[in-house]
C-alpha cells in the first residue's frame, strides 16, 4: 500500500515539473488539473486503507471542482466574459 | 415540468447513493434539497424525459459500457507504448470529420468517447462537424478518417439517444 502511494506522489512531482517549466499557460493549468485528479486517487486509497468512507467525499469534491479553473482559463483565452 | 420531475428523481438517487443510509432525517433533507435544485436547474436538463422511460435505450446503454471500457483500455496501452518508446513516434494533426447524430447530448457523448479512445481528442464541435486532434494521422481522406475515429460508437449512441 505504501509503495503505491509513493509512486502516485512521484507522479505528482513529474506534473509539478511541467507546472514550473511549461512554456505556455495552458500547460501549467492542465498540469494543475491532473495533480488534483491524482490527489483525488491518493485520497481514495487512504479511504480504503483506514476504512474511512468520508475521505471519499473529499475525493469526489476534488474531482468535481478541479476543472472549474480550467474552464475559466479557456473562456479567458477565447476572449469571452465568464458568464457567457 | 417533466424535466423538473426527472431532475428531482435523479438528484434524489445520487443523494441516496452518496449518503447510503435510509434514516428518515437524511432522506427528508435530500428530498428538500433536490427539489430546490430541480426548481432552479430543471429547465436546463438536456434530455427529453419521454426517452428515459424506453427500456430499449437502457439496454443499449448497458451494451455501450463494456464496449467503451474495452476501447478505453486499448487506448491506454497505445499511449503507454508511445510514452515508453525511445524517440518520439508521433505524427499529429487536426482532421475534420462529420457526424450523423442529431441531438446535443448524443454529440456530447460522442465527443467524450472520442477523447478517451486511441490517439484522438475532440477540439471543437460545430453543428455536425467535429475537429479531432489525431496523434497518428493515417489517412488524408475525410470519410475513411471518420470511419476509423468513430469506430463502433456512433451506431450505439444513435440507438441510445436519438
Amino acid at each position, binding site marked *: 500500500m505504501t509503495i503505491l502511494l509513493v509512486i502516485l506522489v512521484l507522479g505528482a512531482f513529474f506534473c509539478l515539473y511541467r507546472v514550473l517549466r511549461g512554456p505556455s499557460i*495552458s500547460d501549467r493549468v492542465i498540469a494543475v488539473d491532473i495533480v488534483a485528479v491524482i490527489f483525488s486517487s491518493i485520497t481514495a*486509497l487512504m479511504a480504503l486503507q483506514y476504512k474511512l468512507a468520508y475521505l471519499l467525499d473529499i475525493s469526489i469534491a476534488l474531482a468535481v471542482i478541479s476543472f472549474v479553473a480550467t474552464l475559466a482559463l479557456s473562456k479567458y483565452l477565447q476572449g469571452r466574459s465568464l458568464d457567457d | 415540468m417533466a424535466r423538473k420531475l426527472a431532475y428531482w428523481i435523479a438528484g434524489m438517487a445520487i443523494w441516496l447513493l452518496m449518503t447510503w443510509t435510509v434514516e428518515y432525517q437524511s432522506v427528508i433533507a435530500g428530498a428538500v434539497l433536490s427539489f430546490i435544485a430541480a426548481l432552479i436547474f430543471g429547465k436546463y436538463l438536456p434530455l427529453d424525459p419521454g426517452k428515459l422511460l424506453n427500456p430499449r435505450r437502457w439496454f443499449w446503454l448497458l451494451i455501450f459500457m463494456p464496449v467503451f471500457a474495452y476501447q478505453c483500455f486499448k487506448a491506454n496501452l497505445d499511449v503507454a507504448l*508511445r510514452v515508453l518508446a525511445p524517440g518520439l513516434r508521433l505524427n499529429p494533426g487536426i482532421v475534420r470529420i462529420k457526424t450523423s447524430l442529431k441531438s446535443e447530448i448524443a454529440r456530447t457523448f460522442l465527443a467524450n468517447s472520442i477523447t478517451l479512445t486511441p490517439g484522438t481528442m475532440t477540439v*471543437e464541435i460545430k453543428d455536425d462537424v467535429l475537429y479531432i486532434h489525431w496523434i497518428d494521422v493515417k489517412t488524408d481522406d475525410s470519410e475513411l478518417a471518420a470511419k476509423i475515429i468513430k469506430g463502433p460508437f456512433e451506431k450505439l449512441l444513435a440507438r441510445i439517444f436519438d
Partner: protein
Amino acid sequence: MIDSLGWVFIIGGVVFNMLGCLGLVRFPDLYNRMQAATKSVTLGTCGILFGIFLLSGFSALGIKALVCILFVLINLPVASHALSRGSLIFGIKMWHKTVKDDFSKDRGEKPAIEEDE
C-alpha cells in the same frame, strides 16, 4: 478471488497514472501532452476507484467510489476539450512535425504550426 482482482485493478491504475505523468513530461507540445495525460489519468483513477469498489463491496465506501467514477469520467475530457479549443484560438502553436491543421484552415487563418528550426 474478488479481492485479488481488486488489487490487480488498483495496481494497474497506479501504473497508468504514473505513465500519464511521464507522458506529460516527455511529449513535445501542449496538444500531445493533453492526449497522454487525459487518457491515462482518467483510466488510472477509474481503475483505482473500481478496485476499491471490488474490495469493499456494497458498503458506503464502495458505492461512493462508484459515484466518484461518474464525476472523474466527466472531468478530464471536458477540461481538455475546452482548453485545447481555447489554446488554438488564442494561437498556441503545435509541434513542427504536425502534418495538417484543418481547424485553422476552416477559420481562414494560417496553420498554427511551429516553424522548423
